[in-house]
């Protein structure tokens, strides 16, 4: 399928690379030309040689969206760093261009929930993080409870080496 990803930051670029690896046609749009470099992390050729497409432009410019191929897109991902931008462009993709699958990344859980109720597919990383942290803390607080069975202790960091600076933060 043809996937259009708007916003080529950490999330957008990683998603673009994995979708390309899965054999899909991938096009990215970002206002920052430098973000193109993220698409070549781990590739031994250029993003274009690998089959990808990259367009420079702001997300609200319909001309840029069209240049990036929104008209033929099967899936549209709004992954810029602005919640409101993502909400607006996702609705443009849905209503104006009638893209089949539209997904918006929304960091604010309240906005994500309300727009989900209005029929938008939303991903809220903040909510996912909150739930994971809650699970983790609960399993630490009460390791013998039934819930503790699902807790992931595997990612507990290893003990620091003896010469580590005890007061050092990251």
């Amino acid at each position: 399928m043809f996937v259009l990803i708007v916003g080529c930051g950490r999330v957008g670029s990683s998603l673009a690379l994995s979708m390309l690896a899965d054999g899909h046609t991938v096009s990215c749009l970002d206002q920052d030309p430098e973000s193109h470099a993220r698409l070549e992390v781990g590739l031994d050729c250029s993003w274009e040689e690998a089959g990808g497409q990259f367009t420079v432009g702001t997300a609200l410019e319909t001309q840029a969206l069209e240049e990036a191929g929104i008209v033929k897109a099967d899936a549209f991902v709004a992954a810029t760093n602005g919640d409101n931008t993502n909400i607006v462009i996702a609705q443009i993709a849905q209503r104006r261009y009638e893209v089949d699958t539209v997904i918006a990344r929304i960091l604010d859980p309240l906005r994500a929930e309300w727009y989900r109720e209005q029929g938008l597919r939303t991903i809220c990383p903040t909510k996912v993080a909150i739930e994971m942290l809650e699970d983790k803390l609960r399993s630490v607080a009460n390791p013998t409870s039934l819930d503790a069975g699902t807790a992931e202790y595997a990612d507990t960091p290893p003990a620091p080496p003896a010469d580590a600076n005890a007061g050092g933060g990251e």
Partner: protein
Amino acid sequence: MYVIVTGAGKVGVNLTQELLGQGHEVTLIENRRQRYLGVEQLLEHNVLYGDASELWVLERAGIERADMVIAVTGDDEDNILICQVAKEKYGIDRIIARVNNPSNRAHFDLLGIKPVVSATELILRLLEHEVPHHNLVHLLDLEEEEIEIIEIRLDDKSPVVGRTVGELNTPDNTLVIAIIRDGHGMVPNASTVFEAGDDILAVLDPNREEDLKSIFTSG
């Protein structure tokens, strides 16, 4: 009336002061800390610190009891979102949104955000009024209500020059309401004679525009 204004730029602050002066209750929301602190000196408890695109901030401002929401931030996405949420989630009938970039106008229309105010469009309209490129200028368009007021400049080739208003056979759903001559406006009667250089003001159904234009202009 209780009005929520978002964005404490020059537009938002002046609007808030004006509305307060008219006796309305107003809350102005601003999310830039420094700007908020500056404006708070002036507007005191009428300004609230927070991001108006966060639902809990709107709720803290009392959006449930608001009669009107005016989104005049410098960011079009924010203005769209605030108005969309105000209208669809909180049922506020009266909203006004500012369009910063005229090329975003279509997005406001697509998502049903209206009316909108665009400084660029206003200036262009004024410019057209001052320096008419065509003989016809739109003074007022009520799209929803399907009525408009236009101004037509009569040049010396106009077929109506020298004739009276009474002789004119204007199409249905159109009416000449005023003539501006030498900078002075007047309401014509049937015996008023059209002169070259007159500006004719007419009220009409939008799809009658071409009919009316053909009566007054030589082109």
